[in-house]
């Protein structure tokens, strides 16, 4: 069978478009798996894992991460849950703070702010279902005061945003962020 000239062009173009479509979808779906550019990868530059690293002020030309609010002071902490339950503690004397927990691809695990936390201090525990069942058998004393979050995710990062309403409070806020902890539960 021989196709006419216009028919073979049509088939050629359809085949090209079909391949283009498949490649397009594959590229879009593979980007989140190839995470060398992700926020999780970039947060490694600010310091060691399992501690809150304060980001430099969000100023023109020297933004530590893209699209951060210039009015906020940020601290990030990277964690790997397979090493153990991660405990987040902070006491921030600012009018507003919030914490967001994200996984490797930037998907939100959990978030809260100082109003939903119900107090000025943050006390939160992130663990895997297996770790939770171990913890239930031998609960720590302050378990009632902890916000316990169960996740299937293996690793991720937390970002703590604190609003400084006046520059004079900046030093105090930074000191408070410095004291914020994100470490393995012992």
């Amino acid at each position: 069978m021989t196709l006419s000239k216009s028919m073979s062009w049509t088939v050629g173009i359809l085949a090209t478009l079909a391949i283009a479509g498949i490649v397009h979808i594959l590229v879009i779906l593979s980007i989140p798996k190839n995470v060398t550019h992700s926020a999780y990868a970039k947060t490694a530059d600010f310091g060691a894992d399992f501690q809150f690293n304060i980001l430099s002020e969000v100023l023109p030309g020297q933004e530590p991460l893209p699209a951060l609010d210039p009015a906020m002071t940020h601290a990030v902490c990277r964690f790997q849950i397979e090493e153990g339950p991660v405990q987040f503690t902070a006491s921030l004397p600012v009018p507003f703070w919030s914490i967001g927990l994200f996984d490797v691809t930037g998907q939100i695990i959990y978030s809260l702010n100082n109003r939903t936390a119900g107090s000025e201090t943050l006390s939160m525990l992130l663990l895997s279902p297996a770790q939770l069942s171990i913890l239930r058998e031998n609960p720590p004393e302050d378990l009632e005061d902890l916000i316990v979050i169960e996740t299937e995710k293996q690793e991720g990062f937390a970002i703590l945003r604190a609003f400084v309403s006046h520059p004079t409070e900046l030093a105090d806020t930074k000191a408070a962020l410095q004291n914020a902890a994100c470490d393995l539960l012992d």
Partner: protein
Amino acid sequence: MNQQWQPTGEENLYRSDLPRVLQSSRPAPLRSVLTVVITLIIGSLIGIVSAFLLIERERPLLPLTIGPWEAYPEAGTSEADPYSVAIYTRGALIPLASGEGLMLTAHTDSEGRRLDPTCTYSVSGQTPTARFWTLSATDENGKLQETLAGRTFVTSSGLLRREDGSFDITASASPYPGNWLPLPRYARSSDGMILTLRLYDAPVTTGAALSGATMPEISRVFCQ
């Protein structure tokens, strides 16, 4: 002699007086392989380039719009579409989680004209209920630019308001009395501009509540 070994029915395989659909072309393996390879290469190129262009926009494909403002409350959740997931992951963009707040961006003024950093704008009206909010200006790529004042944002906490709670912010490169949002001082029209409003601790973080929300108007006052 050979005639009897010729498979029957194929002696006229390449006859040219048959209708076109019944004709068989002579095999041309090299040309066929080349056609397939070129099809594959062109197809892959189109696929990669189209994916790249969509990702580099750094703007969700299907945002929720309220006047000139766009929001993407699904960012970072499992409901986010694959394009936004790719955009956020690739750009290392950390979304505001629903428990933190909501980010809205404007690329145009209320009349639909592209925002221009050399113009003076008035951002006025009211925002949805939130504990506090910040408004900042960046270039088209979301980068902050140097301003005369040094700061690149205004917050709701130090704002002058009318009796009904509404406000009027003047966004301009040169200083302005009242509520002044400093715009980039060395910007050109071609740099473009994005206004970003971040509502913190806002109840309207879900799409349904947001579509009926009142957002400030962005009107162009004058251009230099």
